[in-house]
């Protein structure tokens, strides 16, 4: 459908919030928690924090939570009964105020979860989210959406995109049918307003590299061990980058409980040595440099190749979260400049 551009007053947005809540939807939005801002369930627009560059964690928690139950089991006298998740009871969720980069990330996640056999739980969760994006008026030195095909006002991935125009006015772009449904209760309060200059409100994010260049170099760099060693010398091998990443989709499955219990899916990271450790003790990626390479290759080479989608949206969270300041932009530039 064509994008429908209107404007909305903050007070109408507040009304919309209470309408969503009364319709039984949860609202997940950036919220100030102590000295940082992260996604949390909110009860009103007042609770939402809109002025941060980014949240610590990504909104993937709505569709791919940190720990989720896949099924429950019960063993009685040797007979095992399984109880699958009731997908119908998964809550409808409005993710409000996420940045365009984050909105774009759902496509990457979907590409992986639905790659071969669609992941029923993931799909059901994805089905039940409505993505209300908010354009970026500020960016920081970690942001690089424009280098990976996105932008501070990009609509891809959002059902609705808001742009704060100041003075309690928001530009509201309805991008999908889901988006239209979401604002139907306040459609009377929406005013078509062509005079609003969205571009002027957007942050400037200068492209730092081109994906084409990266993709072409990466494949050839695979065997350049010294390149990767130098690049990753500082990396300590924690999972912070992967866990705050909106597109990282690796998980581990754990059964908990004895005779009765649950099968849980939880996040995992290719940065961990344990990730590829074989039972035999052999590890095909024994070095941190190989694991760092894997991370970049997966996002910028394997995913475009196999799923036709980049594994990176340029949110910069990995760099912000990194305890040793592994700055993704710098590393990508280094790739682009490498002479394999």
């Amino acid at each position: 459908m064509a994008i429908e551009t209107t404007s909305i007053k903050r007070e109408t947005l507040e009304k919309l919030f209470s309408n969503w809540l009364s319709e039984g939807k949860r609202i997940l939005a950036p919220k100030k928690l102590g000295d940082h801002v992260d996604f949390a369930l909110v009860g009103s627009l007042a609770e939402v924090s809109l002025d941060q560059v980014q949240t610590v964690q990504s909104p993937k928690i709505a569709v791919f939570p940190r720990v989720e139950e896949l099924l429950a089991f019960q063993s009685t006298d040797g007979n095992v009964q399984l109880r699958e998740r009731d997908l119908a009871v998964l809550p409808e969720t409005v993710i409000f105020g996420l940045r365009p980069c984050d909105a774009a990330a759902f496509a990457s996640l979907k590409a992986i979860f639905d790659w071969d056999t669609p992941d029923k739980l993931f799909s059901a969760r994805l089905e039940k989210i409505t993505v209300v994006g908010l354009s970026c008026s500020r960016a920081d030195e970690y942001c690089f959406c424009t280098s990976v095909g996105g932008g501070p006002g990009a609509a891809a991935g959002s059902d609705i995109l808001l742009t704060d125009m100041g003075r309690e006015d928001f530009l509201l772009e309805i991008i999908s049918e889901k988006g239209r449904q979401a604002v139907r209760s306040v459609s009377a309060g929406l005013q078509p307003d062509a005079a609003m200059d969205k571009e002027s409100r957007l942050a400037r994010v200068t492209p730092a590299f081109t994906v084409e260049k990266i993709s072409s170099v990466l494949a050839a760099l695979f065997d350049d061990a010294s390149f990767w060693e130098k690049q990753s010398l500082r990396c300590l091998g924690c999972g912070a980058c992967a866990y705050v990443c909106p597109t990282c989709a690796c998980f581990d499955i754990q059964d908990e409980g004895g005779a009765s219990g649950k099968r849980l899916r939880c996040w995992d990271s290719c940065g961990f040595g344990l990730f590829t450790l074989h039972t035999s003790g052999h590890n095909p990626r024994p070095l941190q440099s190989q694991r760092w390479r894997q991370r970049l290759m997966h996002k910028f080479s394997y995913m475009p190749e196999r799923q036709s989608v980049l594994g990176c949206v340029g949110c910069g969270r990995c760099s912000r979260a990194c305890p040793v300041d592994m700055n993704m932009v710098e590393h990508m530039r280094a790739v682009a400049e490498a002479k394999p």
Partner: protein
Amino acid sequence: MEDLRNKARELLAAKAVQVVVGYGRGTGASRRAVFIQSAAEAGELLFDNACRQNLAVYLMKPEVRKLGKMALVAIPATLRTILQLASENQIQDLELLALVPDASGAVTQLATFAAIEAHVVLQDNDLSAAEKGELQKYEIMGMEQRRQFWEEHFSRCLKCYACRAACPLCYCSRCTVECNQPQWIPVPAHDLGNLEWNIMRAMHLAGRCINCGDCSRACPVGIPLHLLNQKLISEVYTHFNSRSGMAAKADHAMSTFKPNDAEDFIR
């Protein structure tokens, strides 16, 4: 700063060391670890108050160790880490140099554990008054308040193990969380798994932690992990009169005992 750069140049040119691990410019105003392998690169070195990472963590990284003999730009915590690692048989004497810049920019080179010990004795190795004050704030809270405080913090833990990776004393090649026969710590980052992981981390650092604070700084979700370590530092000092990282050969608080250790809680 020039002193430090010159020292690095000198050491690298003379092949006294193969790599100088120090601080350089990071994103924005931040500082990050740099690995200077030639005299020409020495200009990248920086030293100021923003240099806070305990670079001793790289002593235990095989890829860095592989580079050869290391000179480590050291802040007070780094020196104590070196001694603690030595006392845990992880590094040998004369295997590294420590370069200690002072406030004026002058650099002291410490080449032996004995020299580091002599330097460390002169540092203030106690918890600072501010740290003690902060600790006390929690100690005087009610038990239930403390529980809520930690439950809220731990509920955010992602189990990304950045705290472990950043800790120079978490060098085990197989961490307890990686043991699955039995599975001591639940893998998922649910509340139980998070609590058990954090208790275990604190216990395994009891009598060993040198209070660099890198765990807290590494935590992407801002859990004040240093409080747990500082609490045990204070307990170990109070009860056993022991401080970690003071000597290259030392009796470890948790693997020794005194016949008259407190036992008022044993009835």
